């Protein structure tokens, strides 16, 4: 037995425990030398990336992994379950986390001087929370990790713009706490009627009492709670401020991951705590979700057009992109769900890249108003090319990953015979062009009257590398969307819709 085989069975739990330990050791590392935490975080995230990558490979090759915490058997003990869905989401979390960690060095020096060590500590705890939410198979354990990720996100946002950051964080705290209370109430209701907290166990126990009002109320609480967490349109009020005023690094990781994990949780609760029959036919929750998502797509895009701060514009665009993910899920047919799930990957890559670019621009010039971007195409050509690729992916130009997911969503809408959703997807793509064109226009074709003597002044290498990798992946998955679709998303959407949840 090699050392790897010895540790292999524990890899599921290590994905959560490693960032936790690393996060708490960060203050000690920073106490030894203030420059060390950056290397420390990169090391930790790299190991976590390898662990989650290995987990996903194991799931693809040999099926779902179950890990019993403390050796207690599932309905009583806490169980970590990794199937295709959360293996996929975990890999995204680890990858985006690593990219943002590499990027963070210079940006943090500028934006949160003197607080880099606490920042990295909290950053790793945020990754812990997100990993835990994704991996766990126990709904109360899920709630604990939800609180960890929320509290750390509040702290990260509050480190941002002096004054505004704290207010934004406080607003988010109130909304987030309301959301968490709804979710906790839902968990309490389910526990009251079934006496179980294990997801697989609940899925067996619940169908016999679907008529119960308590179960209906629990579903409603969950959906409202998660809708606040992902920033679905009428409940999105916290999101733009929080994304705008957080430090660039924190914006990138929160925009790239928090809402995605919220969407994952929604899928998990809809299809593997409740069953598709209940969500689709008995309560028609899927239809409600699809319509709310369609509304979010349009309203988010329209509001994004009205913004002049680039981070705020990206935040509103996030609201609309979350709509795509949830629309795909709400369509509940094979193609639609695949499109929605692919959009999780897609949105994590491109939105993270866009926020990193916004941070790099702010780092070099101190400008966030996109009408002052004239001439930046000359000043920072590589950064702006990344912006161009990520924005094209957001619009859905063929050759980028955004095209594939939008194509699947449109096909899914046609298959579900909801022609209005096809129209909404096309309309929103046009609106995307409108708000990104304003930026392109200023960057590449602006009249640099005041900055004519501009020198080429590219962002530092540690910022460029992660941005370029993310942009390259947007194109890579655009051309080779076959890999995620064939290996992960097709069997996954079959499992979600076909037999009533994940085995």
């Amino acid at each position, binding site marked *: 037995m090699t050392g790897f085989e010895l*540790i292999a069975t*524990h890899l599921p*739990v290590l994905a959560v*425990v490693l960032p*936790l*330990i690393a996060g*708490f*050791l*960060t*203050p*000690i590392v920073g*106490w030894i030398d*203030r420059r060390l935490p950056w290397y420390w975080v990169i090391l930790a995230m790299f190991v976590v990336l390898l662990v989650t990558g290995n987990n996903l490979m194991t799931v693809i090759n040999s099926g779902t992994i179950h*890990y*019993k*915490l*403390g*050796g207690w058997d599932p309905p009583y003990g806490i169980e970590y379950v990794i199937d295709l869905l959360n293996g996929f989401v975990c890999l995204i979390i680890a990858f985006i986390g690593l990219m943002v960690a590499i990027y963070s060095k210079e940006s943090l020096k500028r934006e949160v*001087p*003197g*607080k880099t060590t606490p920042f990295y500590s909290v950053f790793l705890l945020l990754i812990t929370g997100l990993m835990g939410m994704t991996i766990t198979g126990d709904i109360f354990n899920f709630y604990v990790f939800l609180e960890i990720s929320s509290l750390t996100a509040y702290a990260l946002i509050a480190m941002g713009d002096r004054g505004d950051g704290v207010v934004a964080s406080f607003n988010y705290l109130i909304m987030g706490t309301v959301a968490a209370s709804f979710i906790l109430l839902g968990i309490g209701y389910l526990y009251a009627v079934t006496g179980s907290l294990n997801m697989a166990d609940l899925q067996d126990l619940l169908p016999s009492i679907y008529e119960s009002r308590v179960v209906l109320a629990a579903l409603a609480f969950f959906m409202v709670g998660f809708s606040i967490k992902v920033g679905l349109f009428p409940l999105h009020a916290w999101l733009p401020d929080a994304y705008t005023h957080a430090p660039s690094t924190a914006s990138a990781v929160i925009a790239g991951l928090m809402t995605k994990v919220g969407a994952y949780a929604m899928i998990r609760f809809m299809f593997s705590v409740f069953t598709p029959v209940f969500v689709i036919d008995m309560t028609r929750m899927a239809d409600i979700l699809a319509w709310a998502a369609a509304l979010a797509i349009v309203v988010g895009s329209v509001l994004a057009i009205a913004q002049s701060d680039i981070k705020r514009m990206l935040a509103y665009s996030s609201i609309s992109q979350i709509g795509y993910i949830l629309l795909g899920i709400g369509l509940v047919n094979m193609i639609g769900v695949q499109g929605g799930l692919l959009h999780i990957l897609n949105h994590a890559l491109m939105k993270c890249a866009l926020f990193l670019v916004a941070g790099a621009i702010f780092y070099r010039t101190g400008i966030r108003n996109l009408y002052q971007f004239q001439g930046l195409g000359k000043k920072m050509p590589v950064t702006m090319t990344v912006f161009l690729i990520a924005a094209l992916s957001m619009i859905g130009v063929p050759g980028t990953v955004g095209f594939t997911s939008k194509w699947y969503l449109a096909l899914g809408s046609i298959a579900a015979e909801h022609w209005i959703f096809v129209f909404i997807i096309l309309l929103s793509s046009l609106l995307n062009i409108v708000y990104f064109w304003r930026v392109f226009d200023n960057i590449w074709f602006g009249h640099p009257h005041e900055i004519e003597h501009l020198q080429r002044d590219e962002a530092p290498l540690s910022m460029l590398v992660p941005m370029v990798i993310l942009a390259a992946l947007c194109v890579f998955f655009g051309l080779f969307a076959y890999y995620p679709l064939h290996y992960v998303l097709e069997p996954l959407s079959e499992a979600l819709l076909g037999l009533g949840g994940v085995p």
Partner: protein
Amino acid sequence: MSRIQESVIVRTVVRIMVPFILLFALYVIMHGAGGPGGGFQGGVIFGAGIILYAMIYGIDAGKKKISDALDRILASTGLTIYAGTGLLCIISGGMLLQYGAVPLLPDNPAEVSKYLIDFVEIGIGITVSAVMISLFFDVSSPESEEAEE
């Protein structure tokens, strides 16, 4: 210096009470495995003892007892004890936090569980009390923000 801090009665009572509060905190922590209590509650009581001392004898006197650096290291150490115990279980061939798997007393795994749970509770207690104290110091001394680094 407010009036209550100068009061001889308060100062004397606090001086006598604080050691007992800390002792009670240790009792609650150690009682965690076999009865009501545990690392969290004990840690809060321990932190409250230090906070009481700092409130009456002044923030600076409190920081002399537990400095910011010590506080941070304690917070990290406590969690490292907790996670380290979990990893010890993995290294011994069990699942994370499966205390019985650690081969300290080969014939009596339940006994090992009991002691290791105590060990974990101590870790939790250290972290909770350190975080409580650092929260109090952070809120009470706004001037330290600029001075840092």
